């Protein structure tokens, strides 16, 4: 990501632990069959943070070891937002507020066909300002889609680094909102891997209800200067990239 300007490193890093938990532990998934009909589905509604998934895919061997460096480059398989052209991606996203409806559709298909696959939709916290998220939430609660799980990457910031989400348009109380829409909700530390894995492995929390996981995270987690800046877009110099990689243990 250091090679390109305007990447969304902050939002990808806040999501990284959740992505790892999903792809290395929780998901029923087969890297050899990324189109397996009964695979668990993942809709990255906050599509701009797709580098978190590219990282997991590379670790799993779905992408070649050199491919991540081709993110955003001409004719690569790794465009700037989650896209069906990338193996392992289940829906093209990027415009915030669309993914949960897509997930509802997938969960409805699973229910009608009596297929076992689960659907996970990953949303941003600022994204919840889009009303279309709540249309989707309302319908999922109404239809009792317990095959559907929403994960909110609650990193506290959106486009501005100096003003947090609560000061922009407040989204709290978050758990209460999901519960009032007929969901079962739990709130966890999104960087406590034991909590992340245990929580995601125990969906649905209640039979007959979709599950919402509100994961409190840190935008830019693991890179000191990104954590401090809360930047939405990150333009890393070569030196900063060096420091970032060292801090992340790379």
């Amino acid at each position, binding site marked *: 990501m250091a090679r390109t300007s305007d990447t969304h490193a902050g939002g990808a890093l806040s999501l990284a632990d959740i992505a790892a938990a999903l792809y290395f532990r929780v998901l029923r998934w087969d890297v050899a069959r990324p189109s397996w009909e009964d695979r668990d589905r993942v809709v990255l509604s906050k599509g701009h943070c797709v580098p978190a998934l590219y990282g997991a895919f590379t670790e799993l061997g779905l992408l070649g070891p050199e491919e991540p460096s081709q993110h955003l480059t001409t004719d690569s398989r790794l465009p700037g937002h989650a896209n069906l052209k990338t193996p392992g991606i289940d829906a093209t996203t990027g*415009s915030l507020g*669309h993914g949960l409806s*897509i997930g*509802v*559709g997938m969960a*409805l298909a699973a229910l009608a*066909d009596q297929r076992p696959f689960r659907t996970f939709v990953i949303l941003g916290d600022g994204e919840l300002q889009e009303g279309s998220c709540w249309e*989707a939430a*309302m319908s999922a609660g109404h239809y009792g889609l317990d095959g559907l799980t929403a994960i909110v990457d609650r990193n506290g910031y959106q486009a501005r680094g100096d003003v947090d989400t609560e000061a922009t348009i407040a989204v709290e109380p978050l758990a209460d909102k999901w519960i009032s829409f007929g969901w079962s909700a739990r709130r966890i530390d999104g960087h406590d891997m034991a909590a992340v894995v245990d929580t995601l492995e125990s969906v649905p929390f209640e039979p007959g209800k979709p599950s919402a996981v509100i994961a409190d995270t840190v935008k830019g987690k693991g890179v000191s200067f990104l954590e401090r800046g809360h930047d939405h877009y990150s333009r890393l110099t070569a030196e900063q990239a060096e420091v970032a990689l060292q801090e992340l243990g790379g």
Partner: protein
Amino acid sequence: MAILYPQVLHEIARANPTIWGVSVECWWFISGLASEFPERAIEVGIAEQNGVGIAAGLALCGKVPFVHGMVPFITMRSFEQVRTDIGYQHLNVKIVGAYSGGLEQGPWGCTHHGVEDAALMRLVPGMTVVLPADAWETEQAVRAIAALDGPAYIQLRGGELTPGGERSFQLGRASVLRPGGDVTIIACGALVSEALKAADMLAERGVSARLLNMHTVKPLDRDAVLSAAAETRALVTLEEHTIVGGLGSAVAEVLAERPSAPLRRLGLPDVFAKRTADRPELLETYGMTARHAAEAALELLDGRHA
């Protein structure tokens, strides 16, 4: 005698188990399908964006959803979902403008006029856009888009056109309802009946008007347009739609790239139909009747282009 839409969809669904009905407060339209296959019928309530997004999710799981909503709302409120979730992913979803197309809602006001759908749907690359002229043509069009692998929009239409002679339907090919050599009238949807009357009026005046029923606005039958421009001396388009962006504009785009005969576009002249009046009165007010089409044809033939 054409069968009702719910029955058409039901028959298609019976033959193809991947067909789903999604209703945005348009349950009647999927009631046939729902009566036999309730597991493939879903009501999403008054929520167009969610309805279209759900259809995308269903399509990504191999289903072929027909999403039904009122013409203005399913095309405008959920336009981004149509363009981005359905169009960009080129999903096999059919958007059905079930009612409230054109000016049929009349005195209920412009909030309920569906006069932008062709323009909006035409903007989406890979979208097939059909505005059939009557119930018979609607049935043909619905079956044709069901057989198509890709996104499509259709504005449903009832009633019965009586053009005379054998009728045929082919997606993407204009139906020539009247041959003619002096002037061409190109119409679609609700105003094809007015265009027929206009052609007859012109015939009484000794003017031979070719009438093209351009039910498929996208992909437009370019050859039919270019032939008309080469073989007749003027073209008039007529649509129950704004003249900005719909059938008239599509025809103008073809003509502009191959300069030829003069064109006059009839439809809503880039205004809201604000007059509180029923549909016939609105058509009269905004210059969209047979008489207006015939007069426009004569003016163009007379060399009066403005």
